[in-house]
């Protein structure tokens, strides 16, 4: 057993867990944050993607104790109160989901992808970057559309903020 201390969605949390506890199980079962999903359990599907110290990683392929000391953002931490994060809003607007199981991972991957491409995204890049996220309902058409739209919205927002600051 080890002590696991994390900052999750801005809140400092700690708990005691077996060393073999996966981060995803710690989030879901110890912290009750069930928005992060376990899909394949073999690190292929990406339903469990969360941000650890600003990087989108698969929480089913990492021990909770490995993450101890880190800052974590899960799907529950994206929205600002009742206001959806631009990527969440774009998935809603463009119907980027069907059953919704893969959606938390898709959105956490998308926010990371958009942050790494401040110059903007094109369809080929989005599809390549979704290599580690699997959707078994819809195909990827609307997911890609939603990510492209969110990328544009966020670029405009960033320009707007820069103007305000200037």
């Amino acid at each position, binding site marked *: 057993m080890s002590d696991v201390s994390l900052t999750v969605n801005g809140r400092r949390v700690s708990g005691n867990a077996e060393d073999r506890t996966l981060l995803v199980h710690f989030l879901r079962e110890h912290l009750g944050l069930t928005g992060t999903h376990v899909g394949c359990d*073999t690190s292929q599907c990406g339903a469990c*993607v969360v941000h650890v110290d600003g990087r989108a990683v698969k929480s089913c392929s990492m021990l909770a104790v490995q993450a101890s000391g880190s800052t974590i953002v899960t799907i529950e931490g994206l929205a600002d109160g009742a206001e959806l994060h631009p990527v969440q809003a774009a998935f809603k607007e463009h119907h980027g989901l069907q059953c919704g199981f893969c959606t938390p991972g898709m959105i956490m991957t998308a926010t990371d992808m958009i942050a790494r491409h401040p110059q903007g995204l094109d369809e080929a890049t989005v599809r390549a970057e979704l290599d*580690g996220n699997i959707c078994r309902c819809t195909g990827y058409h609307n997911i890609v559309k939603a990510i492209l739209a969110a990328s544009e919205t966020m670029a405009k927002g960033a320009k707007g903020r820069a103007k305000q600051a200037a």
Partner: protein
Amino acid sequence: MYSVNYHRAASVSDAAKLLKNGDAKLLSGGMTLIPAMKTRLAAPSDLVDVSRLKDLQGVKVSGKTVTIGAVTTHYDASTDEKLKKACPALAHMASLIGDPAVRYKGTIGGSIANNDPAADYPAALLALDATIVTNKREIAADKFFKGLFETALKEGEIITAVSFTAPAKAAYQKFRNPASRYAIVGVFVAKGKDGVRAAVTGAGEDGVFRSKEIEAALAKNFDVAALGGLKVSAKGLMSDIHASADYRANLIAVMAKRAVAAANA
């Protein structure tokens, strides 16, 4: 997963001490080890995490010598400006490993210590005539990769870095399995001061290997035209549900041509 004891090493020497616990294994990015433990293919009693050791992180370039710390992630290698300048082929190769989430965690040291027969880094390091630096000694890539999941590493030995001389020209091309995204065949070619080296991953029954046929063809003329009549023998190549040995032999020639074209582009 079976029960395990986790330790976070404070230094390389601390890691070496902790490795003496039971059946301990080093943990770096964990992109192979953790899934293997989940399926109980691996069951170490202890894990010694070296991934946060600052001394083992990052890329250094001094003149023509490139040194990559053992726990440098694939993402950090693929985006490192110094590496992109000194050896763009290796940065590009790192950008092709796994998927973005895996590249954020997986490390060069972990990849080569595991020596998966379809991993990308072993081919690159063999073609670049790299040196693998451990806490005990330096090992030439030619002597390091010993077979399927086998390396020259001894009990308790810890990889700290990898170094090589930046090649004049190099490139990596791989043909991915459409489902697993692992290389069915990957070829890394490098033209350095001591000639041309070409290494093949994904195809050999004994893991990564140098292709004498490709090296001989390119020795005098590092050009796609020199590979026009290239015949690669299927002897010693893997045959499985993904591809026969003959198919892989043909793919080696195709990937070699693409790699040379990319290196000259």
